[in-house]
């Protein structure tokens, strides 16, 4: 199959997809190596950009999908009525971050970090589809373990968890630690 035929086939398939189409599946359907499919998708994305199209081709959650160009959000939001998703509370975001970085993690572990019971917030995150059960702790108690979902990646525009910003970026710096220490009276003025 010629490159141009393969590019056209990719466009046709992605146009009828409901969710990101896995790279592996695309490779199988086109009988091409995954690396080749990646190149072709990159070609297409570059062409849309060069032609100043109102849509983009992105790689997200392990697959490819068409989506509207971010700078046209104002027009699209007039059209998309289902007001996307309600904002998450600060508590929910913090909990989501714990699950994202420490998965698989039990509710008790989440609660231990936050210092409060996490059941209600975890339920909300599950209902929103950002968090799901991923197994059970083999240890005593067999606590249910949770992880983030594919939808979580999609909503954040990430291809995989490896693209999360490193947690080290958020560890408070020496100044912050000093301030905390002073707050707790560890350090005298």
């Amino acid at each position, binding site marked *: 199959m010629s490159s141009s035929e393969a590019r056209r086939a990719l466009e046709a398939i992605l146009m009828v997809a409901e969710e990101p189409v896995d790279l592996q599946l695309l490779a199988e359907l086109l009988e091409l190596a995954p690396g080749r499919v990646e190149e072709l998708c990159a070609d297409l994305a570059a062409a849309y950009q060069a032609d100043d199209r109102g849509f983009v081709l992105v790689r997200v959650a392990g697959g490819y999908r068409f989506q509207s160009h971010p700078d046209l959000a104002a027009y699209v939001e007039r059209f998309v009525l289902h007001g996307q998703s309600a904002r998450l509370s600060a508590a929910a975001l913090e909990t*989501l971050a714990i699950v994202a*970085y*420490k998965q698989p993690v039990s509710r008790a572990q989440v609660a231990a970090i936050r210092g409060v019971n996490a059941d209600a917030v975890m339920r909300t995150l599950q209902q929103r589809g950002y968090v799901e059960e991923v197994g059970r702790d083999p240890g005593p108690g067999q606590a249910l373990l949770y992880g983030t979902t594919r939808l979580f990646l999609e909503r954040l525009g990430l291809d995989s968890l490896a693209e999360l910003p490193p947690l080290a970026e958020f560890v408070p710096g020496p100044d912050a630690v000093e301030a905390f220490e002073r707050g707790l009276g560890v350090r005298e003025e």
Partner: protein
Amino acid sequence: MVCAIRATPRPSLFQTAPEGQGPRPGKEALPYEVQTTVYEGPFDLLLHLITREEVDLWEISLSAIVDAYVAEVERMEVVDLDGATEFLVIAATLVELKCRRLLPGPAEVDVDEELALFEERDLLLARLLECKTFRDAGEALARLAGTAGLSHPRTAGLEPHLLELVPDLLGGVSPTDVRAAYLRATEAKRPPTVDLDHVAPIRLSVRDVVDELAVSLPTRGAVTFRRLTSGLASRLDVIVRFLAVLELYKQGLVELDQPSTFAELTVTWTGSATAELATVDAYEG
């Protein structure tokens, strides 16, 4: 004593905005916005007091902290027993630390008790730092989602004429399978289990890490903090290691160099190879 004697001016850190939002000078530009005054438990309250109010907890009356939390508890429709218990433990630690400070001198204090208290305090500090870490990470996730949310995905699915091509998805599914699926979906989600996680809380010793670093650092020259913590699975371990490095810094045994916020932190041993660790004695017991 473990308390550092080094006098430092009030930190400016919390007068700068969180990363990515640009500097917001001025006292009323709140460094860390707590979106609601309903505190989500003790850590939330402490973080709020330390970061937003920039208070030294010793300067305000502990009863005010307790009152604030009790007021929140009363506003909650359902009492979160775990949270309330946790708060009591933390409040008790604070009260005890404060009492210690008012006592005339270390000579009259039971050393074992004092050390236990310091460990408790270190643990509290580590947990507060961890909590703050994830809070900031959560805000970063929200920013990512905000950016990604400007693009809307195509989810159109198959064109009508293609739907006919779809194989019979119910092929091989029997009515009994449907009934089984219903029962699966509606079954009591899980039998109640006793969660034992809280019985063995994470315990870390800053002292152990200080000891370890005092042995390994003299032979390593300058080493980055990232290097020092590579391979550590738990964030709490990383934070404890960080506290240990600070402890060595306080003792003048290492030099720290960090050109800018979030830049690589370099740790250089400056003490003699056989330096006496002042605080290690104090920690022992």
